[in-house]
């Protein structure tokens, strides 16, 4: 099987400082990869390099495109990359305000990606928006409300609906549960797990919350100071940590 995403030797430096260095991994269709580490360990930098928001200094990000098979995203032209970003890829920001248009109604937010790829039938766009609001457990009568009138958890669910409406194959998530209280987090995780399984999505999830990766991720990478210090199956890494930093990380979690 061809990996959906192959990352080889990805490096990003901020001047003399290291953002992330020499990161390599393969992601297969339907697989969820978790990236954990403390703040400043380079996990967000890595995610932004993968998604094309930041220009990496070295390495390759090879994506298995629908049309032409595996291609290096970094060598693509900008129109191709932006097209990829709004069709086969999705990016869920930590703060829903970064990923939503706050001045546009929920329906318009969900419909934007559809219209961006050429949907021109109002009734169909609205129908799909309603369907997706339902899937992320937002009541249909809120479709014309702006996200400013939504709670934090609803905004995050709306952002997920907006991203998944075009049926992407790869989703990047940057701390999708950050800033939500625990009960809302639990429901969101439940929802995400259902969607990932149902749609056969591949995902790269950056988080510092070990509970999130235990629930969602099949495989795990632990980062420290820009380097990947340990990688493997999620339960293997969490239950039998080998590297000193991973041991520290796992033992730092409070048992409720």
């Amino acid at each position, binding site marked *: 099987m061809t990996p959906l995403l192959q990352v080889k030797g990805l490096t990003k430096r901020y001047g003399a400082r290291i953002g992330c260095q020499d990161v390599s991994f393969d992601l297969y269709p339907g697989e969820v990869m978790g990236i954990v580490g403390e703040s400043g360990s380079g996990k967000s930098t890595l995610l932004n390099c993968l998604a094309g928001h930041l220009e990496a200094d070295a390495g390759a990000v090879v994506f298995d495109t629908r049309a032409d098979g595996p291609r290096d995203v970094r060598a693509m032209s900008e*129109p191709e990359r932006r097209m990829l970003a709004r069709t086969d890829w999705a990016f869920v920001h930590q703060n829903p305000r970064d990923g939503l248009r706050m001045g*546009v*109604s929920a*329906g*318009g937010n969900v419909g*934007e*990606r559809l219209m*961006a790829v050429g949907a021109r039938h109002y009734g169909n*766009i609205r129908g799909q928006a309603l369907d997706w609001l339902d899937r992320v457990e937002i009541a249909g009568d809120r479709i014309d409300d702006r996200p400013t009138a939504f709670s934090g958890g609803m905004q995050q669910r709306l952002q997920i609906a907006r991203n998944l409406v075009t049926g992407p194959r790869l989703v990047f998530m940057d701390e999708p549960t950050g800033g939500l209280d625990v009960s809302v987090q639990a429901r969101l995780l439940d929802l995400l797990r259902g969607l990932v399984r149902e749609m056969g999505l591949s995902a790269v999830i950056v988080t510092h919350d070990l509970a999130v990766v235990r629930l969602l991720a099949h495989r795990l990478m632990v980062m420290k100071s820009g380097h990947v210090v340990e990688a493997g199956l999620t339960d293997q890494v969490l239950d039998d940590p080998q590297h000193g930093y991973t041991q520290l990380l796992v033992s730092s979690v409070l048992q409720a």
Partner: protein
Amino acid sequence: MNDYNFAYLDEQTKRMIRRAILKALAVPGYQVPFASREMPMPYGWGTGGVQVSAACLVPEDRLKVIDQGADDTTNAVSIRRFFERTAGVATTGRTRDATLIQTRHRIPEEPLTRDQILVYQVPIPEPLRFLEPRETETRKMHSLEEYGLVHVKLYEDIARHGQIATSYAYPVKVEGRYVMDPSPIPKFDNPKLESAAVQLFGAGREQRIYALPPHCKVVSLDFEDHPFEASKADHACDLCGSATSYLDEVIVDDAGGRMFVCSDTDYCETRRDAGHLGRLSASGPVTTGQEDAA
């Protein structure tokens, strides 16, 4: 007349503006940056249109200036006098006699011919501005033809009002490529953008010129199930009886009395001279407060 160079601007400036105009005509709908000059009038009064007009005028031209369809309102009068003084060209109120027409907010009702130039005053040339505030981003969207956002605006209109409520500055797609703001003309005028005349758009404050060459294809954006509609008030002109021209609503007393008149004053006068009558034309001054609303 001798106090100014012909048509106020110096020759170097006119040359620069003409270059921008030629480029704009070559790439219909594309906004060409130009070095807009200070003009002896405030921004918002047509500084862009005046510069484009000045660069196009020749001594043989006959100039007409329209402000909201009328020839006799402040903006029209002051710009017409400006060119009478600085260029010494003949002026007219008649659409068919004019060779160059500068306009604000309207396209004349009478179809234009290939011998005419129509110059628009444009306040905000960027059709994506209120959707995406970053200029770097809107330029990228134009260059990559990413126009989904315009439809988000139209979607919001329908979601909120049940129909596309944008009634002026209605976005159009030019020759299947660039999305363009046709300046704040009513959407009733959008079909007239496909014209035999050269149409030039000048935005002074924003320093942009764009253009539509003759018979250029201009499509108003819409949804398949909510098609574009060139709407107007559902009345006939009370002075000349025209049922097809764009109408202004005028409040005539404090008891709910109102009348509808052609916004294009020249069109209305021409029809009245030809003997057409409207509902209020014979009865002299308007006094009634008892209009039947239909």
